[in-house]
């Protein structure tokens, strides 16, 4: 086979999409307008839990510009089904979640009616006129309180508010390892609830064409094909080929734009009833109470160690707050996306994890950047840190001692996964070297003597990306296959259109995927157009999440491009009257080996493929190929991050002084895009460690309902990041890539938390829950100093 040379893969090319985005000329859903378009405004529950006694729409219906007002009753009459659930666990409770609540609301922000008017302002005015009579019911927001006897029931048919009880690992063997341990470490930790906060709020525009009996839905989606399938087959009953879903430029997702949301169901249903296009864009205040939220775990973790300080077992019990309903992957995140990652970078002979999913009167939780893996990494990296301190060992060396060594790959963990490749010590060493770790520890000592509290925190992470082998996804209860598809279409002029089923909403696919194709076909990235986000435009697909675009989507493109090149080689050999085996492909030309003046350019071959005047026997005209790529395994990126912080003991304020990140996600397609992903990820991880918390009061009222209260990290909160990478290629995909979309988020939270707790160690403070806000740190210091009882 003719192999490709690497001219563009590995180059730090500026993104092709930058001019459009940086000059404000992207096309987002809210930028679109259709003739006759009308606007929806949602009427949302102000109660966390209430019975709907009556809804009076008469005043709203008569308001100026109002075209329709709908409640759950009309949707029920039209047989609109509940929202779908994409991952089922054995014996889980799955109460129906309707787009518009029918008789009861279960969280603040749940939709009870929709007003459609000729103008968005008038729609909002009229929404205030919808009179809903509620009978407030007792409510519960905290998952552990929801499990207590006598707690208010979110769903009458889910006793104890239990959604599922699930376990992974060998309990008996784990318990046995604990009984033989020479030392155990126990840690209770909270992984607090977060709000994803994509910069572009969710939006949708639905249009029904009665002549062709076809629907078009423009929606802020990370996975338009999945949106179409779920909406068509499970919610509205539209024939799948009669629904076109288009996801144009999308301003960030972080998981929050994976799911089928009530608003787009309502719009797609209403557009047909009204015969007019209907648009809705979330106000930011709606995003805070309607976008799926992330994390929200309470865990008890225990580590068993032998006399030499080697980890023998890990036992974990996690209570996960599911929210008011089971979201699309809501049951998967605290189970299959979480427990298998608890082994971290370590050889741990036995691991047992039990996860309990609990209903509460809060916004449903689902995947948020990292999705289960940050929760696992935070847990193992915090308890490893505490263990190192209690053993009196340096945290870096304690980790190293327990690492899976490079010669043990592929490594079978006790929790289902087989790590594909890794060299953990190499990344750790690089990070220690960049940080100048030994000197840093000396400086820390000196400053402590001056009453200054510096902390150094490590996190050595491993994550699972590139979901996933479809067979495996099926075996764990996933209601989909997670392959990816691509079409590489070479035009007669040699220019290339590539259709991918992934979707870019900040990832830079238009550049990185073009680099892959350019190398495969000997053209330039400018000759390649990457097309995505339209279900009527070529390939099938499963979308973008879980850092799957490069390892799965990129691999599909690589396979399709290789097929194109193989066919082109065949045609070139025929035109050059040489044997296929004698053809050499370099710099975009097919040479006859050893005869440098006998060649055909890729463009000449493309033209001949379409002219079809002189093709080899049995070769069809045209030059394009389709690939469906189903990965053999997940990919396992890893690395070590180091945070350096200073704590002001008088105010409890934490300042992040330095941040060092060494990541290994296999081969790197574009170092600039790679680094950009790392930077954004770190920022979000720091946000969880220090700033962000989606708070509810006891009654389930959101307290952090705007950017006035909910703190996302700003540039001023962050230092200059010091980044580097090592390369341990993925052994099982054609590009050797692993995915870098979530690494920063996964590593940064434990790295920063460990650094703060390291700074607080002189006070004897063992653990504090994230976010490490100033008052929390101040109180802990005061208590430690004995200033309060």
């Amino acid at each position, binding site marked *: 086979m003719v192999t490709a040379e690497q001219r563009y893969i590995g180059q730090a090319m500026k993104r092709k999409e930058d001019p459009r985005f940086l000059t404000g000329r992207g096309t987002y859903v809210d930028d679109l307008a259709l003739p006759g378009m009308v606007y929806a*405004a949602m009427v949302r529950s102000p109660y966390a839990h209430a019975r709907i006694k009556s809804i009076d729409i008469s005043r709203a219906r008569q308001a100026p510009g109002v075209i329709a007002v709908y409640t759950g009753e009309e949707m029920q009459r039209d047989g609109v089904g509940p929202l779908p659930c994409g991952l089922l666990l054995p014996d889980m409770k799955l109460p129906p979640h309707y787009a518009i609540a029918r008789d009861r609301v279960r969280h603040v922000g749940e939709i009870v009616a929709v007003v459609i008017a000729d103008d*968005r*302002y008038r729609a*909002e*005015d009229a929404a*205030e006129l919808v009179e809903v009579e509620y009978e407030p019911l007792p409510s519960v927001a905290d998952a552990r309180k929801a499990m207590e006897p006598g707690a208010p029931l979110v769903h009458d048919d889910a006793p104890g508010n239990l959604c599922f009880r699930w376990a992974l690992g060998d309990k008996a063997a784990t318990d046995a390892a604990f009984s033989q341990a020479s030392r155990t470490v126990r840690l209770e930790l909270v992984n607090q609830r977060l709000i994803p906060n994509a910069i572009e709020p969710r939006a949708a525009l639905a249009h029904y064409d009665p002549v062709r009996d076809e629907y078009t839905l423009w929606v802020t989606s990370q996975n338009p094909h999945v949106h179409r399938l779920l909406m068509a087959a499970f919610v509205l009953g539209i024939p799948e080929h009669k629904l076109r879903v288009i996801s144009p430029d999308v301003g960030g997702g972080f998981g929050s734009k994976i799911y089928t949301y009530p608003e787009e169901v309502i719009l797609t249903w209403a557009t047909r009833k009204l015969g007019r296009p209907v648009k809705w864009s979330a*106000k*930011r*205040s709606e995003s805070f109470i309607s976008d799926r939220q992330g994390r929200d775990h309470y865990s008890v973790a225990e580590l068993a160690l032998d006399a030499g300080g080697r980890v023998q077992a890990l036992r974990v019990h996690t209570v996960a707050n599911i929210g008011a309903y089971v979201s699309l992957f809501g049951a998967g995140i605290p189970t299959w996306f979480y427990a298998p990652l608890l082994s971290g970078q370590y050889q741990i002979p036995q691991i047992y994890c039990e996860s309990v999913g609990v209903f509460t009167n809060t916004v449903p939780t689902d995947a948020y950047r990292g999705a289960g893996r940050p929760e696992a990494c935070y847990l193992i990296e915090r308890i490893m840190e505490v263990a190192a301190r209690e053993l009196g060992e340096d945290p870096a060396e304690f980790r190293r001692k327990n690492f899976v060594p490079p010669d043990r790959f592929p490594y079978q963990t006790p929790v289902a996964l087989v790590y594909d490749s890794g060299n953990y010590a190499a990344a750790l060493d690089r990070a220690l070297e960049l940080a100048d770790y030994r000197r840093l520890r000396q400086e820390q000592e000196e400053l402590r003597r001056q009453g200054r509290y510096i902390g150094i925190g490590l996190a050595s992470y491993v994550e699972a990306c590139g979901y996933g082998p479809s067979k495996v996804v099926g075996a764990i209860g996933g209601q989909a296959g997670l392959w990816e598809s691509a079409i590489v279409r070479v035009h007669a002029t040699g220019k290339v259109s590539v259709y991918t089923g992934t979707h870019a909403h900040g990832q830079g696919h238009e550049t990185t995927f073009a680099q892959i194709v350019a190398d495969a076909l000997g053209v330039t990235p400018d000759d390649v157009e990457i097309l995505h986000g339209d279900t009527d435009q070529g390939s099938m697909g499963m979308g973008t999440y879980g850092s799957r675009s490069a390892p799965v989507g990129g691999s599909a493109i690589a396979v399709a491009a290789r097929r194109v090149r193989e066919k082109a080689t065949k045609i070139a050999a025929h035109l050059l009257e040489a044997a296929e085996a004698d053809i050499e492909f370099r710099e975009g030309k097919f040479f006859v080996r050893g005869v440098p003046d006998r060649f055909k350019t890729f463009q000449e071959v493309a033209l001949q493929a379409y002219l079809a005047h002189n093709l080899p026997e049995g070769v069809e005209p045209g030059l394009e190929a389709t690939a469906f790529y189903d990965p053999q395994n997940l990919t396992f990126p890893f690395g070590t991050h180091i945070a350096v912080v200073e704590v002001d003991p*008088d*105010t409890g*304020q934490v300042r992040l002084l330095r941040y060092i990140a060494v990541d290994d996600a296999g081969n790197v397609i574009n170092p600039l895009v790679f680094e950009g992903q790392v930077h954004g990820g770190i920022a979000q991880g720091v946000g969880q460690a*220090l*700033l962000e918390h989606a*708070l509810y009061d006891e009654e389930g009222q959101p*307290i*952090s309902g*705007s*950017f*006035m*209260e*909910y*703190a*996302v990290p*700003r540039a001023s*909160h962050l230092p200059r990041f010091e980044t580097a990478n090592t390369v341990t290629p993925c052994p099982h995909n054609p590009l050797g890539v692993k995915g870098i979309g979530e690494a920063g988020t996964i590593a940064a939270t434990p790295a920063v938390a460990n650094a703060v707790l390291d700074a607080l160690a002189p006070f004897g403070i063992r653990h504090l829950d994230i976010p490490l*806000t*100033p*008052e929390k740190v*101040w*109180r802990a210091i005061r208590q430690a100093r004995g200033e309060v009882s």
Partner: protein
Amino acid sequence: MYPPSFRYYRPTTLQEAVSLLQREPEARLLAGGHSLLPAMKLRLSSPSALVDIGRIPELKGVRRQGDGWVIGAMTTHREIEFSDLPLLPEVAARVADPPVRNRGTIGGSLAHADPGADYPAAVLALEATLRAAGPAGERTIPADQFFQGLFTTALQPGEVLTEVRLPDLGQGWGWAYEKFPHPASGYAVVGVAAVVRAEGGSVREVRIGVTGAGPAAFRATAVEQALSGRPITPEALQSATQGAFDPAEMNSDSFASAEYRAALCRVLCQRAVQRAWQRATG
């Protein structure tokens, strides 16, 4: 974001603005709009009309007058940040971010009297006076009578805040503003402005304004008294601030409890006075 409908006026003279307010009693004045417009978008505020005073020339700019300064109410944070005024440039530089500072005004901020706004601490410490114009003519309000409570000032309905006047601070004076910003809103959880006059190695005069901590900005008079006539030392600051801030009088929210705010008052007060003292004696 979609506010309910309202009428909009843009007067070009102060007189016109005052008579518009008389005609539209439910109207609100629009200055830089950085507090009012978000509240309207969230439908927390629904005025019948807005009277935009951003195009009235006499309300703009910083100028010297006699041995003091006059700051027009519609002077932006950004203009103040780059002015030669005492203390206020340091305060303005800590207000939100540059886009907000380019639009927001000192008059808008003072009249709105958000408990976390920065200027109230400074005008108290500077012993500024505020000028207001209304149907009955103009009047002067001392800063320490201006802030009356949560979002409440001495301004009467129909009055327009027109100017802030300050004395010039010459040789021997020093000042500083210490702020603990809320990481989300950027408002002061606590902000302390200190103005100190040193004479012969001792404090001749010290004035401390505190914002963010309570429903309205206030002077830390007990601390001022304890420090007067003494040199500033860490020990003096420790003892002067001991028990000076009562949690019972502090705001409390999910980010910072009253107890924590009282502790921040103490720490920031020490740091502000220390820095002001260094400036006065350095």
